[in-house]
């Protein structure tokens, strides 16, 4: 009975979600980043601060799209947002490793990735913007 209620709630949330009901996300980089593709592990290392540079050697500027974070991290490492926040909370204490900048608007993410060579971020599919390069698609 409880499972049924949960399923209903999730469906409702999905309906009430923003313009994109489907959770298809794409990791994007600057065209001049020097990388064509990114493995899932490389992506998780970059987004969780383990790698400070992109595989090409360019220092990474990691950007979070706030509305998509929940879905993104679940898709990427299978963790909930509180878990991710707790993780960063530990690291923020040392001050050496900074969490990604959190940006409200997806278009702004696109804008910054297009502008900064080491920038990396994620947007909803479809993201057919010529200024950025799509390197990893996340989704079911």
């Amino acid at each position: 009975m409880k499972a049924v209620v949960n399923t209903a709630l999730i469906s409702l949330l999905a309906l009430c979600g923003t313009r994109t009901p489907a959770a298809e996300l794409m990791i994007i980089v600057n065209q001049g980043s020097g990388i064509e593709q990114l493995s899932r592990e490389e992506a998780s290392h970059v987004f969780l601060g383990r790698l400070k540079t992109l595989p090409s050697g360019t220092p990474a500027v990691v950007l979070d799209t706030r509305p998509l974070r929940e879905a993104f991290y679940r898709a990427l490492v299978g963790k909930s947002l509180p878990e991710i926040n707790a993780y960063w909370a530990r690291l923020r204490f040392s001050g050496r490793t900074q969490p990604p900048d959190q940006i409200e608007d997806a278009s702004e993410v696109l804008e910054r990735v297009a502008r900064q060579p080491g920038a990396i971020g994620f947007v909803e599919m479809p993201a057919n913007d010529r200024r950025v390069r799509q390197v990893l698609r996340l989704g079911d």
Partner: protein
Amino acid sequence: MATEPSPSARQRRQPLLHGIVSRTTLLILFFAGLVGALVALGSTVVVAQEERKRLQQNVTDLIQSVERTASVAAFARDEQLAAEVAQGLLGNRSVHKVVIREGNRVMIELGHETARSGRALPVQVRPLMSPFMPEQQVGEIEVWPAAHRIDEDAGAYSRFIAVILGMQLVAVALAAAWVVLNVITRPVKTLSDSLHSLRAGSGDRVPVPAGHSGDEIGRLAGDINGLIVRMEGMLDSERELRAQREESEKRFRLIFEAAQTGMFTLDAEGCMHNWNPWLARTLGLPACNEDTEPYSLRRLLGPEASRLDALMVRALSDHRPAAADFQTTSAHGHVLWLHLVLNPMSGQLLQGIVNDVTDQKRAEASAIAMAERDALTGLLNRRGIEHRLDQALDGLQEGGLALMLVDLDGFKEVNDTLGHEAGDRVLTAVARQLESIVRRSDVVARLGGDEFIVVLGALDSPDTARFIAAKIVTSLARPIELDGAVHARIGASVGIAYTRTRDEMPDALMRRADEAMYEAKRAGKSQYRFAS
């Protein structure tokens, strides 16, 4: 306890007071200390083991508590965070050194290894897994437990136990000392002091220490008193016995010393060892005491010593008293007759009893002399002449012996006419005349009536006898003056028997003289005849 004992007494008594107490206390301290030391040692070992376990568990728990943060630090390659974790761990006193690796790279190494090898605990290593992919290892954490702490902690714990035990030990020892002092030593010391100052034989008793009447100390006091009573009884009876012995000894000594009889002991050599004052006085011996040298009785008796030897041999061999008379000289030079009784004692010793029998001897001698004399003339009588004749014959050596029988002629007429008194005077006068004629060594006797005997000894020849006989005949033929003008006229017939041998029997000699005398009578009287 109330009076202060003298210094010497205190020195003597102090060890008694402190001996048992200090010994008991020291023994308790020793054994309890031994046990305490063993307990402390054992507890050190056990505590050390427990400490090791605890330390290891502690380290494990610590690692567990920082594991996630360490994982994050390793995952994020955040040396700062790793350093924080390591410092946090080192802040705990169980941790000695921490190393956090990311892959093969050492992110942080804090603390330093100890050189202690034997005590070292194994380094705890824990893999650090990725916070996001639990199957992926991102690094490891190594933690060295602070093994040296174990010894410190265990040592501190043991010291704590030792201090507690020591305090308990001191308390127990003090309690034991107090108990021994009050329950045992004080009463014993009281007893000892009472016994020490007790005067034997005074009737004093040892008082039972207060509160100990029912226990062993009370029994000890009772036994001591019983012993004192018995000892005093023994002392009394001993004293009484000694007094009795002294009394009887004195009595016997008095008997010995006051006796009017000589007493002495004699050894087998004839030497006197003890003699009483009477003997010393009588014989002129030195007073006998402990230091007196033995005095030879043989020397005292002089020529009679051989008889003493015979007497001693007889007494010793017959084992019974033997007695004999001895003649000796008194202290004042008188002749002394002693009656000596020797009584054999044990050990070849003789007991001697001496009595002065000089008076008896003298009386006896005079009685004998009286019996041999004629009361009227004072000459020897028949018995006396027989005795002397025997002696004269026995003593015959050189020369001859003549026996003359003198019979008066006409005496009967004198007796009848002038009376018995005149007769007696005639006899006395004849006796004197005969004595005046013969030598002093010759013997004159009256046989009885008017018969006389003259014995002449040591004669060169019979002629001497003839000459004397003639003299007698001539002398007696003269008238004998009686009272004034009254004269008695008598004569004498003499028979002579002569011999040169001692084998001649006195009776035979007498008979021959008698026959010769009758022959002279028959021949006409007033003449002498020689027996053939």
